[in-house]
Each structure stands twice: as structure tokens, then as C-alpha cells.
């Protein structure tokens, strides 16, 4: 049984929170380059240029990419041959707390949804735990902006709605809310599971690299088709009209009940801040 100290987890989360707020990963920057090549609208091109310039300034490490540095979401995969010395939950929360305070990031978390008082340190983060083989701890981190999160939706479709129903729902989410979610977007789509599982799948998909297609060719083809259909909407960068509305559609699936066809779309803005670390 391998043992690691919880303090290592805190440090890893702190570092990820700060790094992601300032520096977008290469996959996202490459998607911007490709978008700029494809875009034909002059306003759209100008916005893509601004977005790239913004990424360059933020990467210098003084001003975050976006003022909404998000609510932190963490998928923690714990190897069954690993023991964490200390309190894992508290270690992750402490990492988020330190990252947001020390990194001059915005504290966007309220302690209660209706009484709305800011917690002052961006905790709590939302953490999803799972157990995996091996003796490692994998942490997938996302800093998820609130504006695009607000445009996300979930539907419990009927089995008879089928593949077409799922695709129409995804396109409708973008058609209705895409302009408000800071396009170009990355869509995380969950299909299957049940009511809560499908939302979690969508989040997992939203935090996947925009360059990585689903391993199942059936779903990989659906990702490409949905991307094309969404881009045909004409919403464009920042919703002002153009050819590039989504950078990628990422699908994650799970078995489901025979009466069900759950689908969820987690919308992510161009500030696609995702990263992972293995301890």
C-alpha cells in the first residue's frame, strides 16, 4: 500500500487553480488558431484576435484570463492501493482556498443559494470521488465559469426520441443560450445514466480536452456532426454572427434504464480551463 501525505494534494490543487486561471492549455490555444482560420465574419475574426491577445496577456501571470475565475470542480480518482495520510476532502478544499486567495482570483462562491453571502475564499469546491485500480491519485481540475454554466440544460427524453432527439436537444441548447455563454464554446454532453449521473457525465465531458474524441467511433462521429450543426446556427464568436460557434463537442455516455434517455449539456465558454495531475 502506497502512502502519500494530504499536504501534497493541497499543494497540487493550489498550483492547478492558479495555473489554469492564467494559462490556457495548448489544446485550447490550437482550437483558437483553427477557429480564426475558419471564421469569415469580420467582427468574428476581430473577437477571435482579441481572445488570442487576451490569452497572451494572461499567460504573463499578472491578470487572469477572465475575471470569472470560476467555481472549482474536481474529479478525484483514488487508486485502491493508495492510502492518503490525512483528510483528503479538507486537503482539496484547502488547495482551492489557497489558490484563489494567493493567486488573486475572484471569490465567486456564496455560502447559501438564497441568502447569498460570499464565503470569501471560493470554497467549497465541488468534488466527485471515484475509486480506480492502482496506487495513484488522479485529480482532474476545472475552473467553471458561471455565465456558461447558466446556459446548461438537462432533459429526460423518451427512448422513442432516439439519436435524433438527443442531437436536436444539444443543438437547441446552443441555439437558445449559446450567444450568452461566451462563444466559441466547448460543449460537454452526457447521454445515459440517470438524472444525477447524466449531469456528472456532461461535466466530465466539458473538462475533457477539445482535441480528444470519444473512443467509440459511433459517438466520435456524433461529436463531429453536432459541431457542424451547431456552427451552422450562425451565432458566431460572442454571438455577433459568424461561422465558429463551438470549438468542440465532447460526449460521455453511461448505461441507462430501459424507460430512459437522459441527456445533459454542460456549456463551457472559450475560457476552457481544464487540467489534471497524477500523484
Amino acid at each position, binding site marked *: 500500500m502506497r502512502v502519500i501525505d494530504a499536504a501534497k494534494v493541497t499543494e497540487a490543487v493550489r498550483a492547478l487553480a492558479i495555473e489554469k486561471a492564467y494559462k490556457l492549455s495548448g489544446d485550447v490555444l490550437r482550437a483558437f488558431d483553427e477557429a480564426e482560420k475558419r471564421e469569415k465574419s469580420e467582427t468574428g475574426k476581430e473577437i477571435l484576435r482579441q481572445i488570442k491577445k487576451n490569452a497572451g496577456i494572461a499567460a504573463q501571470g499578472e*491578470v487572469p*484570463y*477572465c*475575471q470569472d475565475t470560476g467555481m472549482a470542480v474536481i474529479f478525484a480518482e483514488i487508486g485502491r492501493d493508495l492510502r492518503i495520510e490525512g483528510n483528503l476532502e479538507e486537503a482539496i478544499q484547502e488547495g482551492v482556498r489557497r489558490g484563489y486567495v494567493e493567486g*488573486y482570483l*475572484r471569490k465567486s462562491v456564496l455560502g447559501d443559494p438564497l441568502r447569498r453571502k460570499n464565503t470569501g475564499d471560493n470554497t467549497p469546491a465541488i468534488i466527485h470521488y471515484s475509486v480506480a485500480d492502482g496506487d495513484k491519485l488522479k485529480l482532474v481540475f476545472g475552473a467553471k465559469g458561471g455565465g456558461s454554466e447558466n446556459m446548461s440544460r438537462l432533459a429526460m427524453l423518451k427512448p422513442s426520441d432516439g439519436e435524433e432527439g438527443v442531437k436536436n436537444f444539444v443543438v437547441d441548447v446552443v441555439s437558445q443560450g449559446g450567444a*450568452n455563454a461566451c462563444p466559441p464554446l466547448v460543449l460537454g454532453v452526457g447521454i445515459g445514466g440517470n438524472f444525477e449521473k447524466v449531469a456528472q457525465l456532461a461535466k466530465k465531458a466539458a473538462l475533457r480536452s477539445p482535441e480528444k474524441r470519444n473512443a467509440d467511433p459511433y459517438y466520435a462521429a456524433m461529436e463531429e456532426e453536432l459541431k457542424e450543426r451547431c456552427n451552422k*446556427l*450562425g451565432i458566431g464568436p460572442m*454571438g455577433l454572427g459568424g461561422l465558429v460557434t463551438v470549438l468542440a463537442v465532447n460526449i460521455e455516455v453511461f448505461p441507462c434504464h430501459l424507460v430512459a434517455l437522459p441527456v445533459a449539456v454542460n456549456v463551457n465558454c472559450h475560457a476552457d480551463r481544464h487540467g489534471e495531475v497524477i500523484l
Partner: protein
Amino acid sequence: MAEYKLQAPLTAEVAKKLKIGDKVLLSGVIYGARDAAHKRMVEAVAEGEKLPFDAEGSVIYYVGPSPARPGKVIGAAGPTTAYRMDAYAPKMMELGMRGMIAKGKRNDAVKDAMKKHGVVYFGATGGAGALINRSIKKAEVIAYDDLGPEALRRMEVENFPLVVVGDSSGGDLYAEGRKQWEGKA
């Protein structure tokens, strides 16, 4: 589509001549406020109090910046989504506001009030918080300090890059732009 260098606060004439698609570099004094600050301002006015700033011709920027580093003016400061302020915007126009800076679509009540009061809606690039930081030369909290990122701020800006996304004759670039590019990809 014209290009302008403008000064805030805005005169009625300037606000009226702007059309959707126009590019603007805005300089001067603007006020930063979002959800919670709008709620307080509108509630204060309903109780007969005055606004914490002179609203005549004012431009309000829907923004909740990240914290400034020591010695710096402000942190990242891009626009937030406008529809959450739709409930308050017509009242602010009645009080003299002549321009809004934000991102995203507005409802019909806001568009009608813009026509009635000759108000312009500027789009800033959402998420470009670091780039916009460079246009903000001064920032100070003038009210509601307890709201943190949502406090009311007076800001001095220079050449803030904007696009007119809603104009005082009912033009809406979110609708028009999409119509122009639908089916083209």
C-alpha cells in the same frame, strides 16, 4: 458600420447616432455595477434616496473584476452576461443612464426602453478580462464595498474596444448577425 472614438459620459446626440455593428473605442468615466449593486441602486431610488453617482449620460459597465494585485489598478475585468440586469436596466435609463457595456441578448422591455430614452448597448468581448484590464486606468469603489467583486465602482478608461450590439432604433446585432451567417458554416 462606422468607427468612433467616444468620450463617456455620452451626450444624447452621440448615443442616438450609433448603429449596430459600429466599432467604438471608449474613453472617460464609466461605472461598474452588476447584479447585487443594481438591486441596491434600484431599491434605494424606490425609497427616495439618490444614486451614489450622477446618472445623466452615464455609461454602466456590467462587471465584477478579480482582485487587483498590490499596486495595480484592477484585476481581470471583462463583461458579465446582461440579461440578469434586464430587470433593472429600464429604471436606470429613466434615471439618465445612456449606455450599457456587457455581453449577451436583452429582453423586449430593455429594447423598448432603449428606444424611448435613446440608449445604446455596447458589447465587450466576454472572457477577455486581461485584455480589457489594459484599458482601465483608474478604478475605485464608490459604494457597497461589502459586496466585494459586486461593489459599485467608478472607472476611468482609455480606448476600451467595443461593438455597438443594440441601438436606440431597436437594432439588435445578436439577431442580425446570426441571420446573416445562419447556414453558412
